[in-house]
């Protein structure tokens, strides 16, 4: 403690200089070590760049300036970490240990959730108002790129959240159900001309059916195996979509998918179109707003259903399963059925999202359903705080909005060069963030969500009691 205090408050502290110097020396050693390792790791991949020359041969370009900058950043980071962050963290742990473990119920989310819902409902109106005031016409972009795009990810995140966040089953192939939903809608709508609202439940049911079909044999497996099998399943579905050309048209995908209509009235410029029927001037904005409210309704439905399910025995069983599978089985819960339900319901919502995606784009191809897409959805769930619906929503907003905003920032292009594209760095940041969240805040950066029921006194009776999701001891009852 004395050492860290001295390190923190610098010269003004009354602590002996010897300690201060020792802390400084330690930090310097850590920095040198980290810098050396970073140098060793970065030399091949950052120090050299492989590029093709005019004769299509691979040649090396050196980037030693970048290498030096990155090594300096790592070394500096290690220095500051050892000197300031580490002592600060230790002090905080110490303080938390001394403080009585009181946690009051949080009032925040109770106000936040209705406010957020109210905001998303009036969001298109706000955008239109903004347009009217500024005179720009960027409403389609704002509602489509931000609104609809974010809500699709929220929808997918909420669906995966049931599987990963509530039931604790790591599904790395969630995008497969998204793909099943999208292709179901695309094929059925094109072939039979069924309407969107008929096909939406159908696509969901088909996806859920695939969820059950896949889940039935594999859900007896341990968690880690399950993750890899779902990954393999996701890849199989994608490969079938690519190779089953007579049905799916392979890489080229399916285009010209019928768009949803407003109770039979299409959104086009014809005389029987939406605009003409209601005596409005034709504009693509009506369709966009309509789609926005469809996906918003789907998201709210998903959130509502999930909230209710959590309170049912099946929801309790999911959470129990996540915390301790063996205990679950000992208490007579049929773990296979419980897992299967979570899997099927998660797949159902994935299927809804897929059908909506196909209807919105009017085009589907296997490119949209890669492992990276699964990873993105998983990142939304993990960063949001597994099990928390509000967290998933906030994480999706941050993810899509940050990428879109970064793309538009011009000064970044001046700093990093004109070919700087933040979307390239998106997955890099996600990967890093997933590791960071697991290490520092396993319950998520955005929101922490405790199990719906916690047992008290577990900590006193069993010092090494199994930890719950947060890695924190379980310590209170909350109804």
């Amino acid at each position, binding site marked *: 403690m004395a050492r860290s205090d001295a390190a923190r408050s610098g010269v003004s502290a009354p602590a002996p200089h010897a300690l201060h110097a020792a802390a400084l020396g330690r930090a310097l050693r850590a920095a040198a070590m980290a810098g050396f*390792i970073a140098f*060793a*790791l970065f030399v*091949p*991949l*950052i120090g*050299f*760049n*492989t*590029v*093709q020359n005019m004769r299509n*041969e*691979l*040649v*090396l370009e050196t980037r030693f300036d970048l290498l030096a900058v990155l090594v300096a950043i790592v070394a500096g980071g290690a220095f500051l970490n050892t000197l300031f962050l580490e002592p600060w963290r230790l002090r905080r742990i110490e303080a938390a240990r001394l403080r009585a473990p009181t946690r009051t119920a949080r009032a925040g989310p109770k106000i936040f959730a209705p406010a957020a819902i109210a905001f998303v409902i009036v969001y298109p109106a706000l955008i239109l108002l903004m347009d009217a005031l500024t005179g720009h016409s960027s409403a389609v972009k704002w509602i489509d790129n931000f609104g609809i795009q974010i809500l699709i990810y929220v929808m997918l995140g909420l669906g995966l959240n049931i599987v990963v966040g509530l039931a*604790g089953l*790591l599904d*790395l192939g969630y995008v497969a159900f998204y793909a099943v939903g999208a292709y179901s809608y695309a094929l059925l709508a094109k072939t039979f001309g069924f309407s969107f609202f008929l096909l939406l439940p159908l696509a969901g049911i088909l996806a859920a059916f695939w969820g059950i079909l896949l889940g039935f*044999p*594999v859900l007896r*497996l*341990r*968690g*880690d*195996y399950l*993750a*890899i*099998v779902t990954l*393999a*399943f996701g*890849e*199989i579905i994608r*490969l*079938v979509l*690519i*190779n089953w050309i007579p049905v799916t048209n392979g890489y080229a995908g399916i285009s010209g998918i019928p768009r949803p209509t407003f109770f039979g009235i299409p959104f086009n410029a014809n005389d029987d179109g939406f605009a003409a029927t209601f005596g409005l001037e034709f504009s693509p904005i009506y369709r966009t707003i309509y789609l926005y409210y469809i996906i918003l309704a789907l998201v709210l439905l998903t959130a509502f259903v999930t909230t209710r399910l959590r309170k049912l025995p099946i929801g309790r069983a999911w959470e129990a399963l996540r915390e301790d599978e*063996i205990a679950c089985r000992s208490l007579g819960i049929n773990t296979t059925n419980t897992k299967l339900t979570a899997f099927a319901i998660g797949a159902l919502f994935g299927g809804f999202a897929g059908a909506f995606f196909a209807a919105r784009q009017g085009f589907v191809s296997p490119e949209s359903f890669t*492992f*990276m897409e699964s*990873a993105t959805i*998983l*990142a939304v769930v993990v960063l949001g705080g597994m099990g928390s619906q509000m967290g998933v929503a906030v994480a999706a907003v941050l993810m899509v909005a940050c990428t879109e905003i970064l793309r538009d920032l011009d000064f970044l292009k001046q700093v990093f060069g004109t070919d700087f594209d933040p979307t*390239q*760095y998106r*997955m*890099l940041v*996600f*990967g*890093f*963030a*997933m*590791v960071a969240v*697991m*290490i520092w805040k*396993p319950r998520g950066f955005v929101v922490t969500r405790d199990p719906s029921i916690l047992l008290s006194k577990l900590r006193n009776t069993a010092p090494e009691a199994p*930890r*719950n*999701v*947060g*890695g924190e001891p379980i310590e209170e009852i909350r109804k």
Partner: protein
Amino acid sequence: MEVFVQQLINGLTLGSIYGLIAIGYTMVFGIIGMVNFAHGDVFMVSAFVALIAYLILTTLVGIGSAVVTLIAILVISMVMTSVLSWVIERIAYRPLRGSFRLAPLISAVGMSIFLANFVQVTQGPRNKSIPPIVSGEFVLMGSGSYPVTLSVKQIIIWIVTATLLAAFWFVVTRTPLGRAQRACEQDRKMAALLGIDVDRTVSLTFVIGAALAAVAGTMYLMYYGVVSFSDGFNPGVKAFTAAVLGGIGSLPGAVVGGLLIGLVETFWSAYFTTDYKDVAAFSILAITLIFLPQGLLGRPDVEKV
């Protein structure tokens, strides 16, 4: 017949590469019960390190001899990849021991995404191809229309794989490190009580796995002459399939599984269609896990509370 023998040769070559990667999975799973999802991407990074080392040695340093180049890039790649794996274990996995069940796996998935995209960002998304390091082949069965050939590259891969597997086998069965490693595998707490440095042993397990993956990466680069940032995913999943098929936790199982997966893949491509060869490999994974969860050579998994 000719087709069969040719595919046998190709399959064994591919299978050696899978087997080398699979050992990394099976060892890590054996010792800390975790699927090191980033292992496939460690393999990909090792191929890139070998590629860059090759370019440095041939264009900047100007070494002409193929043998010297090959040995040098193999050693460089093994060392670099070992350091990388050590750092990954230190940063991303060690702090998570004792965290909740899915934490290490999610962290590994994050690390895998990070590595693939790191290489994409730093080296670009295009395929990187190099001229063949070694060439030459022998005709084994010379029927004019379909000669069965065995290339020098394939012989090198077999020899290197066999040598390193033998060395690895020696380390695991005959040295104090191997003893410590097997002890940790059986019971980590007990091993710690008997004075084994568990953290160090786990680190070394990751390092050994990564070194073997680097051998696979270098051989992969030499064999195909091309590598891209996304090349970690498929071999990674297939090597994991191999580890599961052979019985996860079993070292000979990983090699046998790797060879089998390599053979299945090449025979499938030769006799059926190349379109679905990955589907075949992935299906084997699911089928094995459902019907033979302990694998061919593994012990049945006993769940302890």
